[in-house]
């Protein structure tokens, strides 16, 4: 294991050890460890020259490419925290994120100019946009202040990943260099990553699983193959890429894997280089895993569990021959994690899962209310903070954990966390909406939104659909949107969401 104090040290250490080894590839382009490290330095210098200081936040607004790697390593090298901004998100969402954590500069691409200029126009403090090589691509409106950099510390924030929030505003999961590296060390050891490995990067930066591809692979001196957005949507092209790039490690949400199975993209493909197929983020179905396994003669399989707030904290290595139709367990705790199940405040074998680990977030960005609810101490170790996952689990006689559901209305769609409450609150802002009810149904899960309009208003579902697309992250935009004359109610007068979910499941 290398000795890294900051996440971006990974680039510096491998640049000394193996400068020509390939850290990242994208299409025909490659980035060696030497080039990654030099690029990080160059971007850091440019950020400082534009007034970015230690502890600032810098947005990353790029399509998946080598720019993704250069941007995040350069921002961290500057002593700032990177904040991924989904290139597919509506401007409204990007502005919310920029304002929520006071983004001072952005790293982007020229082809995204029309969008980032809409964002900078609406966020007065955000004046600087640089390309990943440090070139300014949006003129600063005010001259940079002289920079007097304070020294860095391992407890500085490294990155903030925004996720769906039930109050209608996104919440920023804030990780430090220390918590990020604690996860990286654990995952490198758990999957035995080496410089010979080739990792498939499915996840975009705004999805927390990307830290495995962007940090754990490089920590081991391996090569991470960045997969374009286009490949992710075309199963035949993706399967071809996995084979051609001779990938050894697959790490994704089940959806990416299931797509290949269901579309029949695995026929005549040689996936013999794959040695680990790791999935997480939502439950995987045994049948689909078996179908995938038929094409990967040398792969081992592993289920990874852990909310973005704590990173991976449990695992289940699987032998496909032993797989039954029973749901796949989320396994046993990782070495560095302490998992406690509480039922009504008492330790139990079934209840809500709490996690303490050095890989746990520092907290939600600038949100005392949410943080007060997210953490607690347990038993006689008051100094130890546990994170409340909201996941309901059961521990079996063998000590393995099984996911039972959520204690709130959070759902997962293609691995992304979605708060149904948030969708309802956003839709209710539209003047033609009296009440909104969001439900999820089907497999794969789809979001359906039902609304009622105020009297005398003839709500137009096309208009409401456009409103949803403008105000919600792409994965939360409903597949089904219908205007109803009135809602069916439960005995207590609440909207009967169960009825709506069943009605949507056709």
């Amino acid at each position: 294991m290398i000795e890294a104090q900051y996440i971006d040290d990974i680039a510096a250490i491998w640049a000394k050890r193996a400068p020509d080894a390939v850290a990242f590839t994208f299409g025909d382009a490659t980035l060696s460890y030497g080039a990654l490290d030099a690029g990080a330095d160059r971007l850091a210098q440019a950020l400082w020259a534009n007034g970015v200081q230690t502890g600032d936040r810098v947005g990353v607004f790029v399509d998946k490419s080598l720019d993704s790697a250069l941007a995040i390593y350069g921002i961290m090298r500057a002593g700032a925290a990177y904040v991924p901004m989904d290139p597919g998100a509506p401007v409204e969402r990007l502005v919310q994120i920029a304002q929520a954590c006071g983004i001072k500069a952005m790293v982007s691409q020229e082809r995204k100019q029309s969008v980032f200029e809409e964002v900078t126009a609406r966020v007065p403090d955000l004046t600087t946009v640089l390309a990943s090589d440090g070139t300014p691509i949006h003129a600063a409106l005010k001259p940079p202040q002289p920079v007097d950099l304070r020294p860095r510390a391992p407890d500085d924030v490294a990155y903030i990943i925004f996720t769906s929030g039930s109050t209608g505003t996104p919440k920023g999961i804030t990780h430090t260099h220390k918590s990020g590296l604690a996860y990286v060390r654990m995952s490198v050891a758990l999957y035995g990553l080496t410089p010979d490995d080739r990792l498939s990067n499915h996840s975009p930066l705004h999805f927390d699983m990307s830290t495995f591809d962007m940090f754990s692979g490089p920590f081991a001196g391996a090569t991470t193959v960045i997969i374009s957005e286009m490949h992710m949507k075309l199963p035949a092209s993706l399967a071809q890429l996995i084979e051609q790039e001779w990938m050894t490690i697959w790490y994704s949400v089940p959806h990416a894997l299931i797509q290949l199975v269901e579309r029949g993209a695995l026929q005549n493909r040689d996936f013999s280089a794959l040695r680990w197929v790791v999935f997480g983020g939502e439950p995987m179905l045994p049948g689909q895993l078996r179908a995938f396994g038929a094409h990967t003669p040398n792969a081992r399989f592993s289920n990874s569990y852990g909310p973005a707030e704590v990173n991976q904290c449990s695992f289940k290595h699987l032998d496909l021959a032993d797989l039954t139709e029973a749901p796949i367990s989320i396994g046993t705790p990782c070495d560095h994690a302490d998992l406690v199940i509480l039922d009504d405040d008492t330790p139990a074998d079934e209840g809500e899962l709490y996690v303490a680990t050095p890989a746990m977030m520092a907290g939600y960005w600038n949100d005392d209310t949410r943080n007060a609810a997210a953490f607690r101490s347990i038993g006689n170790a008051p100094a130890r903070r546990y994170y409340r996952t909201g996941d309901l689990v059961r521990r079996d006689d063998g000590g393995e954990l099984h996911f039972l559901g959520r204690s709130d209305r959070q759902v997962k769609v293609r691995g992304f966390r979605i708060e149904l409450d948030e969708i309802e609150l956003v839709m209710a802002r539209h003047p033609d909406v009296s009440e909104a009810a969001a439900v999820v149904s089907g497999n794969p899960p789809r979001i359906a939104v039902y609304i009622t309009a105020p009297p005398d208003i003839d709500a137009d579902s096309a208009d409401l659909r456009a409103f949803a697309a403008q105000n919600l992250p792409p994965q939360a935009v409903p597949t089904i949107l219908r205007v109803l004359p009135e809602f069916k109610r439960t005995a207590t007068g609440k909207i009967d969401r169960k009825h709506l979910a069943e009605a949507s499941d056709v």
Partner: protein
Amino acid sequence: MSDQTALDPKSMIRDFIVSKLLNGRAIADDENLLLSGLIDSLGVFELVAFLEKTFSIAVPLDEVVLENFTSVATIEAYVAAKKA
């Protein structure tokens, strides 16, 4: 069929994408349709079903690839080649 064939294939493809898959967002013929926020993976296969039905062609999975499906222009060229 007569009212449909009044439109050229490119316009029909573009109309379907804009109205059914992009919530009315306008697109250029050479614009990459598969970048974030545009057509998603389910949308790709809705488009495939539309092409098969509208142009009476079979679109096998191994032809649903980058070369053929990145823009209105490449999709039109692909359909034209299939019809030829």
